[in-house]
């Protein structure tokens, strides 16, 4: 029996990293495209709504069901093969339930379970073993995320400053539509004609979709369906937030790993100095792949955690005078190039009120791991703090923003976030991808009143960010938690066009209910 009734043993499957808790009636753990087809057909016949989920590391509750069936793809966790792209390039074919960390491990150790691989894949593997080390560039902080989840929300991360989000690395997909039909798409083979997209399905039938006509922001963006005239069909499915299809196979592009990777954390007294440094680095330094920010609030939480918790004792000491920190990662094909860039960063620091002596440079894997641990320790520490506060006030949870604005508004938005949170007396910790003007401002409520204030404030921000031509969700996707923000970013006509896309794929509106479109809107 592929479909099992929901039992207490499945309790963990109704929650995700956003700490939203839902409920479900049944669950399945398919291992193949064929099993997914069988399950989806049965659900379609019986009119049962269903939610697709991977590792449930998302922050928007997109994988959290509110009733119906859970289609959990974590057992679809095989790496299916390697493919050659031209002379020196490679791509990897995977099932959607492969965690990012497992793919990374296999690529770096060049070790695969290749017993069932095709001859062509084994040939590619042999070439791969002798090629330069390859990597999959998208790097969300949570590496236990599944690749299917990353494609569904078009995840990005620190290195997206240089390498972009997941979308451009998706070369081909195979998927099951909500009515059980199968679809295979390869990038570069199926394009919209203006705003009309006709998808050829595996059984010979066709599906025609009208692409929404809104203009997407030029910033990082995962708010709503990707839409542009003459677009590639693959781009519509990437970032569709579990609302259009169930991915069963993905082909992902790899890139040669740069020969030299170095990172540097720069320490500043003030946020203003850090912002000036960001502008200067963006304009003047080549080879930068990420620019990550930690504000005073985030550093303070980390400092307390380091003092109280032995697990964090290996973090470098954070002196009291440090009011802001920036992590810059540099990639290059030789060490001399990267060292020159490091020197330029030193000069820019001196010019912006920083100091080349107040930096932590990582030039070895061990040191890079330490700086990575530092970056991961920030959200971890904030979660621990919130868990403690939750004991006193169970109704609260962390509120994290995920909005991005164009480059020219960085100073303005930093000041705006600071002023509006201070005016309400809220405790905040801010970190994130400042290179893309994309910060995660986290409100850490001490009581229910602050929680409510924070939620209302985020709605205000959604309007503000939209007015600055930004995106209300830049990398986490929309899911259920940010569906309300979409109404700030898009007009009713645009939302209706989005809903029409959804209806074309899923006329019974069974898949991923509550994602993108608030439930009450959808049932109209």
């Amino acid at each position, binding site marked *: 029996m592929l479909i099992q009734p929901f039992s207490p043993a499945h309790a963990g499957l109704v929650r995700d990293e956003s700490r939203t808790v839902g409920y479900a009636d049944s669950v399945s753990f398919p291992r193949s495209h064929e099993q997914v087809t069988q399950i989806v057909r049965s659900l379609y016949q019986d009119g049962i709504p269903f939610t697709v989920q991977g590792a449930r590391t998302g922050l928007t509750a997109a994988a959290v069901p509110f009733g119906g069936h859970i289609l959990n793809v974590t057992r679809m966790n095989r790496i299916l093969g390697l493919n050659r792209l031209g002379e020196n390039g490679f791509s990897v074919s995977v099932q959607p339930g492969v965690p990012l960390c497992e793919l990374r491990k296999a690529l770096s*150790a060049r070790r695969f379970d290749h017993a069932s691989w095709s001859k062509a894949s084994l040939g590619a593997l042999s070439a791969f073993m002798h090629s330069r*080390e390859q990597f999959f560039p998208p790097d969300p902080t949570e590496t236990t995320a599944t690749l299917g989840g990353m494609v569904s929300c078009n995840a990005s991360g620190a290195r997206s400053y240089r390498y972009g989000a997941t979308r451009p690395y998706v070369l081909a997909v195979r998927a099951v539509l909500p009515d059980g039909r199968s679809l295979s798409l390869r990038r570069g083979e199926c394009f919209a004609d203006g705003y009309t997209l006709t998808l050829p399905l595996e059984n010979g039938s066709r599906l025609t979709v009208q692409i929404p006509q809104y203009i997407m922001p030029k910033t990082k963006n995962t708010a709503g369906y990707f839409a542009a005239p003459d677009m590639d069909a693959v781009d519509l499915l990437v970032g569709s937030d579990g609302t259009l299809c169930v991915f069963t196979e993905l082909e992902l592009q790899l890139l040669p790993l740069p020969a030299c990777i170095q990172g540097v954390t720069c320490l500043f007294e003030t946020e203003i100095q850090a912002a000036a440094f960001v502008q200067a680095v963006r304009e003047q330094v080549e080879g930068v792949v990420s620019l990550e920010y930690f504000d005073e609030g985030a550093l303070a939480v980390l400092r307390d955690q380091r003092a109280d918790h032995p697990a964090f004792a290996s973090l470098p000491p954070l002196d009291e005078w440090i009011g802001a920190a920036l992590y810059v990662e540099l990639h290059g094909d030789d060490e001399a190039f990267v060292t020159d860039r490091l020197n330029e960063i030193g000069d820019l620091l001196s010019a912006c009120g920083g100091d*080349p*002596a107040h*930096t932590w*440079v*990582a030039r*070895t894997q061990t040191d890079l791991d330490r700086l990575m641990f530092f970056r991961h320790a920030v959200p971890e520490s904030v979660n621990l703090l919130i868990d403690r506060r939750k004991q006193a006030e169970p109704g609260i949870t962390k509120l994290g923003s995920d909005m991005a604005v164009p480059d020219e508004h960085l100073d303005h938005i930093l000041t705006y976030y600071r002023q509006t949170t201070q005016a309400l007396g809220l405790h905040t910790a801010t970190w994130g991808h400042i290179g893309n003007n994309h910060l995660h401002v986290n409100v850490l409520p001490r009581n229910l009143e602050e929680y409510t204030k924070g939620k209302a404030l985020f709605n205000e921000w959604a309007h503000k960010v939209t007015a600055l031509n930004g995106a209300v969700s830049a990398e986490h996707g929309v899911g259920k938690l940010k569906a309300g923000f979409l109404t700030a970013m898009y007009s009713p006509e645009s939302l209706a066009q989005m809903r029409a896309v959804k209806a074309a794929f899923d006329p019974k509106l069974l898949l991923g209910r509550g994602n993108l479109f608030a439930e009450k809107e959808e049932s109209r």
Partner: protein
Amino acid sequence: MKFAVCVKQVPGTTEVQLDPVTHTIIRDGRKGVTNPFDAAAVELAVTLKEQVGGSVTAISMGIPAAESMLRDCIARGADEGVLLTDRQFAGADTLATSYTLSKGIEKMGGADCILCGRMAVDGDTAQIGPELAERLGLPHVTDVIAVLSVEENALVLRKTTADGTIDLRVALPCVITVLREVAQVRLPSIEGIRRSFAAPVHVWSAADIGTDPARTGLNGSPTQVMRTFVPEKTKITKMFSGTPEEQATALCTALKEVL
């Protein structure tokens, strides 16, 4: 106070990669790194220098490429580097290595405190520190986890023993070997890296330090490596399933078989 720290470059990874078709070993070309025990020794020396003043010299016997490791030590607070490099030194065991290092340290004019990591992660012998002390005729303390105080003519140290720790005073000059927990290695700063490019790394040959060719490298090494191999895994993991009673019965049966 003059500190000398012996450092060794070790491979950055212990993973061996094989071609699935030809089954040949693939060299991944990853750079060597400072032996982690030695990195802790450098950190300790730099911390002590910051407390009591003086200088830190990082010294290594190795291939010319090990110069970059010495510059990394300088970026992390050492003042200068000494690289002992010569074809004659190749193939050395610990006896020949400690002899070569002792000659290098003599040419430096000696030191008040010579620090070594407890052992290298690629050799695991833990012999260099004590051998070096014998060669130089100095007292030594192994497995140091803390320097409790620096006195005018002595160090007060805490070392681990088989069943605990012991605090003791050792007269200077001396040799100590340290465990990794003796210090948390700092990350270099951009300023430190700039300094490392300007600072001196002295490159000395066999002739420069006056070693006897019969006592260095392969000639001076009584140890012969017969074979290196990856140890075979003999551990077998068995999973028992069923009710707790069934699992307990299966476990008892399995234990009876081996006991």
